[in-house]
């Protein structure tokens, strides 16, 4: 029989992991909800940002915060570049072409990273204190990324609900033509959305490099999970994706202590497949 304290610790770790996953899932989901294209290579952009932090901090000795900010800037720039170079020319073409284009980017980025940096795993380890909360072990290296993720998500929420541009992003996702009649250039709105989505990828990369080691195939490690979270929450549904992030991270984390992390992923996939049949519109979709 497993000690309940381990389960409690796994649950806490699940919450901590869920925050960063939510950042990834909401970034991908924002772009999908507005532009209607799934960026298959989203987590591969995150991978590039992780490498940037690794080189700046570990190799060139930049302070952590400066490396993180650089990754956020790189993420936003990558978001803009992906939109202008890859998405914009194929807007309105068949969905299969859109999948092939962003899928092609994925293979390009993976090969590019392998060529430049080999398949070595690289990581940045910080030695930060841990806290003991009634027997539950709370390492700051996980609490800080969680807190930053939550703050970023609150900022995203305020941006989307309180500002003209943020509200326009939500409006364009409902009726692009009507938003044009309001005087907004839909292409500008798409560009802002891609920049914000890219910025979130950059921030996620800046946090993940302190939790995982980076390698050219990092996208394959978290990409499918991120995509599953978006589908589970309902593609384009931000609140759904947020909730689904924590459901998935809890499954992986708790199954991880009960059996193994691999088993956690297996269970997460099974839950995902079952849910697709039970609630194809996502966990928060209205019935009927």
């Amino acid at each position: 029989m497993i000690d309940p304290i381990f389960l409690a610790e796994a649950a806490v770790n699940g919450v901590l992991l869920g925050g960063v996953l939510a950042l990834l899932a909401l970034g991908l989901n924002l772009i999908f909800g507005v532009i209607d294209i799934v960026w298959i290579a989203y987590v591969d952009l995150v991978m590039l940002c992780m490498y940037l932090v690794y080189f700046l901090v570990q190799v060139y000795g930049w302070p952590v915060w400066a490396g993180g900010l650089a990754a956020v800037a790189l993420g936003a720039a990558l978001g803009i570049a992906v939109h202008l170079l890859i998405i914009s020319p194929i807007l309105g073409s068949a969905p299969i072409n859109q999948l092939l284009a962003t899928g092609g980017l994925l293979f390009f980025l993976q090969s590019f990273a392998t060529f430049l940096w080999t398949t070595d795993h690289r990581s940045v380890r910080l030695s930060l204190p841990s806290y003991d909360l009634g027997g539950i072990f709370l390492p700051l290296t996980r609490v800080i990324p969680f807190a930053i993720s939550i703050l970023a998500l609150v900022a995203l929420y305020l941006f989307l609900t309180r500002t003209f541009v943020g509200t326009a992003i939500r409006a364009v996702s409902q009726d692009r033509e009507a938003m044009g009649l309001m005087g907004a250039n839909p292409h500008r709105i798409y560009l802002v959305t891609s920049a914000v989505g890219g910025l979130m990828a950059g921030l996620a990369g800046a946090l993940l490099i302190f939790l995982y080691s980076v390698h050219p195939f990092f996208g394959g490690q978290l990409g499918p999970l991120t995509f599953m979270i978006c589908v589970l929450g309902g593609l384009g549904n931000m609140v759904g994706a947020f909730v689904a992030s924590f459901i998935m991270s809890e499954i992986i984390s708790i199954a991880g202590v009960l059996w193994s992390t691999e088993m956690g992923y297996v269970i997460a996939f099974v839950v995902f497949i079952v849910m697709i049949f039970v609630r194809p519109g996502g966990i928060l979709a209205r019935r009927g």
Partner: protein
Amino acid sequence: MSLLELTGVTTGYGHFTALWDVGLRVERGEAVAVVGPNGAGKTTLLRVISGVLPVRAGTLTFDGAALAGRPAHEVVAHGIAHVPEGRRLFPTLTVADNLKMGAYLGRARKHYAETLARVYALFPVLAERRTQRAGSLSGGEQQMLAIGRALMSRPRLILLDEPSMGLAPVMVLRLFDLIRRVREEGYTILVVEQNVRQVLKLVDRAYLLEVGRIKMEGRAAELNDQDFVRKAYVGL
């Protein structure tokens, strides 16, 4: 110079020509109606004016500026607000957010609070429902919101596409009263309607559009007297 002037405007969808050589003008402060049977091209006409559809031939000027070939978001900036067929609200956004989007343009954003107060004064029900989702409003309220959203851009010309569509008869009368009030506020209006009898009471002039061509034009009272219009559209 007229506020809006179309000469020889032709447009269509793919190989299909929906408007042929249309000439139309709207003077400052005027209310003008376009009437005609289903499929005549009334919606197409408003869409080509607001830039949603490109002009294939002809000229389109607004206050002296040539607008043919300009995309919709630039046409609004010139002062034309389009209340589209079927309202096209943002259903999951609140009433207040829908109105906010109406003021998206830079120049409208500056006067946002002031215009909002005017719209709420014109449509008090929108103020009561400001935190409700647009999709949850009744048909009449949705039409008021669509008109209010258009007013938020501080336009000089409002294009209304079948504002009475899908409304109960009582609501239709109320809505025409409200449009009359919008007129009295000094807005210039170009309205498309199936409800010919009501709309001819509201406007100064009207055009009759049939299979993509202007067939008749005249003062509202004169058209109302024409046997042809009476029989075909007013149903008398």
